[in-house]
């Protein structure tokens, strides 16, 4: 068994994998150590392997490298062995290894799907808090807890979305800051960034909470559909998170009889007097009725 040491990055793994591939080392002969440990690439390798003339590096489809790079964002105890196994098999000419129906390919695609989904979760569930205009630093800050290492590759989206506004997203592991022109990525996340993101001075959430409560239709209460689409692990960082259990229990306690939001039902209503016989308001400027 050979321990392959590298810095834990995909670029580092790719270099190491290329060398191992040229030396003809099969997946079961390699133990991946992506912990930045300073041991050499072949620290336990017996000499015959080291002295073998390196073959021409095999041609690897660009598409496979993209798949592997993306799958490397998936957090799992041993994230590199599967990637090398797929790489090895494709290099041997067995391209089924890349396909979702294959025994290794299905694992690879499961990781790819989870990574794509987590990037989508970032785009969907990050909540920015505006900061007072008088303070220094980013205008918008957000705290997010992704399940995979997607922050770096998936954050460009917010630069396109928010134009010249400056923003910061901090996570327990890494952080990213857009200064209006460039992205600055930091791993580990600086303490200052984490502090900014976790203690926003934001008193403007009431409108969003009012909207969320009102757009919910209690007559259609469906907890499992909610939890499938909005996993419970995200609730604690969403401003609307604490509202969810409240709205559900209100619905069960009688609000489910019709679709109206409780806050609206409590207000006095107003029907509109209108003389239909006079003229039906169809096209043109039928009847000026300033009802407001």
């Amino acid at each position, binding site marked *: 068994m050979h321990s392959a040491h590298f810095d834990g990055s995909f670029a580092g793994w790719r270099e190491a994998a290329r060398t191992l591939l040229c030396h003809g080392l099969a997946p079961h002969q390699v133990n991946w150590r992506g912990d930045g440990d300073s041991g050499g690439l072949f620290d336990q390798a017996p000499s015959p392997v080291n002295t073998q003339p390196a073959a021409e590096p095999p041609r690897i489809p660009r598409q496979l490298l993209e798949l592997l790079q993306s799958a490397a964002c998936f957090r799992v105890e041993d994230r590199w062995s599967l990637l090398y196994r797929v790489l090895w098999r494709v290099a041997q000419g067995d391209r089924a290894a890349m396909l979702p*129906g294959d025994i290794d390919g299905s694992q690879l695609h499961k990781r790819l799907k989870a990574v794509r989904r987590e990037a989508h979760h970032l785009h969907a569930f990050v909540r920015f808090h505006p900061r007072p205009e008088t303070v220094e630093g980013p205008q918008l800050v957000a705290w997010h807890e992704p399940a995979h290492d997607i922050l770096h590759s998936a954050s460009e989206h917010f630069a396109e979305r928010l134009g010249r506004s400056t923003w910061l997203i901090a996570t327990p592991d890494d952080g990213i800051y857009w200064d209006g022109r460039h992205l600055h990525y930091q791993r580990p996340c600086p303490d200052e960034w984490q502090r900014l993101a976790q203690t926003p001075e934001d008193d403007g959430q009431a409108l969003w909470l009012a909207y969320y409560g009102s*757009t919910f239709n209690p007559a259609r209460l469906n907890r499992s559909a909610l939890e499938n689409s909005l996993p419970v692990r995200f609730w604690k960082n969403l401003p609307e998170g604490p509202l969810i259990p409240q709205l559900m229990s209100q619905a069960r306690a009688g609000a489910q009889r019709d679709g109206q939001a409780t806050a609206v039902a409590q207000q006095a209503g107003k029907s509109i007097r209108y003389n239909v016989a006079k003229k039906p308001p169809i096209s043109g400027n039928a009847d000026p009725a300033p009802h407001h």
Partner: protein
Amino acid sequence: MQLIEKLTVLADAAKYDASCASSGAPTRSSKGKSGIGSTSGMGICHSFTPDGRCVALLKILLTNFCLYDCQYCVNRRSSDVPRARFTPEEVVTLTIDFYKRNCISGLFLSSGIIRSADYTMEQLIRVAKLLREEHEFRGYIHLKTIPDADPLLIAEAGRYADRLSVNIELPTEASLIRLAPEKQLRTIKQAMHSIHLGESEARVEVRAPRFAPAGQSTQMIIGADATDDSTILHTAASLYDNYRLRRVYYSAFSPIPQSPNTVPFEAPPLLREHRLYQADFLMRGYGFEASELLSGPGNLALDIDPKLAWALNNREHFPVDLNRAEPAMIARVPGIGVLSAKRLVALRRQRRIRFEDLTRLRCALEKAKPFIVTQDYRPLQASRESLLLRQQLSEAPAQMALW
């Protein structure tokens, strides 16, 4: 009235419209520019409410004052609901604030009919124009189109909006006459035609101004009248054909406060709505005709999905050999979707398909088993009667509502 009170009333008034899609827009970016907003074609659901429905857009009415008296609508003039009206500037402020917080991807604006159809449409356009021109907003905008509005106003709306929609409301003209006396099928279809025309012109002429690049959609209310699923699906199919609609939304009729006795006061038929969406998806994505899914009058089965129902009624096409069949036929097998069908075809170029491959592709095996042949598998149930299979595959009747 405070802004937050208006928002509470006008979001409640707008939620019976099912559509909240923010997909289909062209790619736009604000990177390095003034203004904000981007679109990428793919929609984003920023939140979900406890009814399991997605929140992608700020979905509100400009006002819920309304001169019409549509019986199924909470905002009908005879309804005793609180009324409110936003100024265009208030809608803009809310949209930009929610957008910066990353709570939404854009705005879906509709309105009660005030003064006249044209006046109402002008108000909606004014909001979109303010957002696009004054605030350089590049996010998604969906505008509801008022059926009787001047076609020139519809053309103007199409320049600012990504999507336009006119609601067909009810699946038949008879129901529309009975329940929505001020609405007319003729003018609803005219508005759909104007939008379709605008889309076609923008597509054909290179220099034509852009026009609703995410197309048009519509909504049908399910269960407010007695129309059967067969009529509903055939109506939807003809709308897809005639006006190239991107989507028909089916909205299970939700009981409304102080319900008039012309419409039911009972739990919304959610399972029926779900089956209609499945059937609609089979028409849009799988090449099924409405007449294949329901050949005569009647409703879709509630205990099995429409693809399984079709397969059980058409046993002569099965079992399908996954190593030989056309991709379109593989996608017609219950439990195997279009994506899995594509993946099976890619895999069989490398080697023969075996039964365990289906497990890895996460196909619904219990449903698929009676209908497929692989290199190592032939169904024992191939000759079993459809009635028995149906009993075996039927989903336990689920009680969807509490009352």
